[in-house]
């Protein structure tokens, strides 16, 4: 099995290209606001952005089918989440602690999901979602429903050093699952550069060792990202087993917004990996005629509105009240005690995704 299975070159579907870019714009806009809210002290804990990684993340989210695929986004996947269909307000509600958000103030920032709608709610421990997505797919297979479905998750360069990543991808390969793992190699794990994280020439070299197909892409090159990531999803869906996509790029902000990322050398920032994929995308889209510049400007304006509304609404939302909270980690305590405890879950129902 070749590492660099050439993806059938094809002219990219215009709907796909546009939908990826739309998600990227929304993510960028939303995250810019989140950063401001953090600086203004309106968000506590931390804010983690995907700035610079929108192209590959969005390309993945857009290639998935929200009606049947399962997706475990990670730290820097606002674009992928949006493309997959997570409403923006899930993000703002989670950051701001609204009881109407999917996490109801119990968990925050990027630790959100809608498991019933097949968006896995990540835990912090890196690498841990790979096997969860594998299990989700195994369940579909056991029911005879796997055909045509795909699971996807994202990790960073740093997360490839975790045992969880290794166990998960190896297991997925053994089971030959339609799992796409997008490795966003942004050159750093927090402050730690690739040189202190792994010693192989290219992370893509791992693919052969797992017996999965591997693909490498310049994550700053929008059209390439859409093509390569989309192609990997197609191959997984077509039954070629797990796909590992390594995207080379740079995080264009700190690890979190508390971090000035001074450890990233200027040469990198000003080099090819430092290109802003959103700017590149805009140029490529206009140049290739997927959309006119004026249309994109209009998108930008519409998004501004949408983002503003997602923030305003989440800010107005009720926040959790410790006195009303059901302090209960088990769902089934009723069953367990034959009715001794009777509280129902949740107190204030989260709104469901459209």
């Amino acid at each position, binding site marked *: 099995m070749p590492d660099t299975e050439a993806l059938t070159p094809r002219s990219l579907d215009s709907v796909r290209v546009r939908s990826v870019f739309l998600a990227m714009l929304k993510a960028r806009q939303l995250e810019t606001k989140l950063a401001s809210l953090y600086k203004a002290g309106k968000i506590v804990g931390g804010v983690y952005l995907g700035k610079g990684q929108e192209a590959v993340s969005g390309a993945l989210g857009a290639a998935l089918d929200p009606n049947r695929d399962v997706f475990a986004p990670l730290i820097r996947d606002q674009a992928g989440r949006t493309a997959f269909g997570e409403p923006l307000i899930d993000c703002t509600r989670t950051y701001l602690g609204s009881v109407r958000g999917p996490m109801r103030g119990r968990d925050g920032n990027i630790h959100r999901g809608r498991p019933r709608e097949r968006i896995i709610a990540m835990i912090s421990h890196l690498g841990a979602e790979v096997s969860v997505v*594998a299990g989700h797919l195994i369940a579909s297979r056991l029911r005879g429903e796997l055909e045509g479905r795909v699971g996807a998750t994202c990790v960073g360069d740093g997360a490839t050093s975790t045992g*969880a990543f290794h166990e998960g991808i190896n297991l997925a390969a053994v089971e030959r699952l339609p799992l796409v793992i997008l490795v966003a190699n942004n050159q750093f794990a927090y402050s730690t550069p690739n040189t202190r994280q792994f010693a192989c020439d290219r992370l893509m070299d791992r693919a052969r060792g797992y017996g999965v197909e591997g693909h490498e892409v310049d994550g700053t090159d929008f059209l390439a990202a859409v093509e390569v990531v989309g192609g990997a999803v197609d191959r997984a869906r077509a039954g070629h087993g797990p796909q590992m996509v390594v995207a080379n790029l740079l995080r264009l902000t700190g690890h979190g917004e508390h971090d000035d990322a001074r450890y990233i050398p200027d040469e990198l920032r000003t080099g090819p990996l430092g290109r802003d994929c959103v700017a590149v995308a805009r140029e490529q889209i206009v140049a290739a005629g997927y959309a006119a510049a004026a249309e994109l400007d209009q998108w930008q304006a519409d998004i501004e509105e949408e983002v503003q509304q997602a923030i305003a609404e989440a800010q107005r939302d009720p926040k959790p009240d410790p006195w009303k909270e059901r302090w209960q980690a088990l769902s089934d305590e009723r069953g367990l005690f034959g009715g001794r405890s009777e509280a129902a879950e949740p107190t204030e129902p989260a709104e469901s995704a459209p």
Partner: protein
Amino acid sequence: MSVNYVDAILAAQDTLLREDESVFLYGQDISRFGGAFKATKGLADAYPGRVLDSPISEDAMIGVAVGAALNGMRPIIEMQFADFSSIAFNQIVNQAATHFFRTGVEVPITVRLPSGGTPGSGPFHSQSMEAIYSHYPGLVVVAPATVSDAYHMLIQSVKLDDPVIYCEHKFLYRWLKASSINGDGLPLGAARITRPGKHATIVTYSAMVHEAVRAAEMMNEESGWDIEVVDLRTVKPLDMDTVLASVARTGRLLALGEAYPWGGVTAEVVARVAAEGFHLLDAPPRRLNSRDTPVPYYPDLWASHRPTPESIRVAMRELLSF
């Protein structure tokens, strides 16, 4: 015809697989081989495709279970030995246990932990990890002591919508036999009075129930003491009603367990009785656990690392002489 403890576990899994299509089994060497202890023997043939061998990847095994549970299944994971669940610790306590609280979505997985010591099994094939998992919110932890409980509690565990850590005692696998599997209708979460008595209460669980009963019988023969033995069955959550009612009758408590002495089930039981039933106690409550070292290999050392009928009787005599 008699049925032993591990047969009951096998039978329960058979029943579950037969009656519920969402049940499947995942673990090392559990498929055609039938598992290190033969607890899944024959199931791979009876339920093709539903009993899967995993790689040696405990962390991923629990991840798989969680993912499958989120997609409508009720997986049972066999750890080859409880001790190896240390590799899956993160997925159990952080992924599975927190999920319902965080998202409102249940994770109905059951993790079978072959637990406890046997002669010669040594520091890494003998551990009792119930205290570790009980500490974490969001897990139910059970530890059946009888053949019938091994059967019913496994079925109940799998039916529960929450993650259950099912601690099965390896020493009981073939040593403990019953003429048949009976049900007494007790739900998960309820303790049982295994041996009624009036002078003192031993609260314990799993294999130590049998050592406690043996000690109680000896003390009855030797000197007429009538010791009540309470089998907790579920260690998290604890059935304090039954425990307190027993202590109310006897006035004296020994909390007994095979796990390490710091913290754990005996500490929780004594602390809760002291707090909730202080006035019921006629003497200081006592605890008896294993020694505070890893579980030793050599059978003589192993046998005196854990509580024995002899050490239980010493503790009980001190308790009764107060």
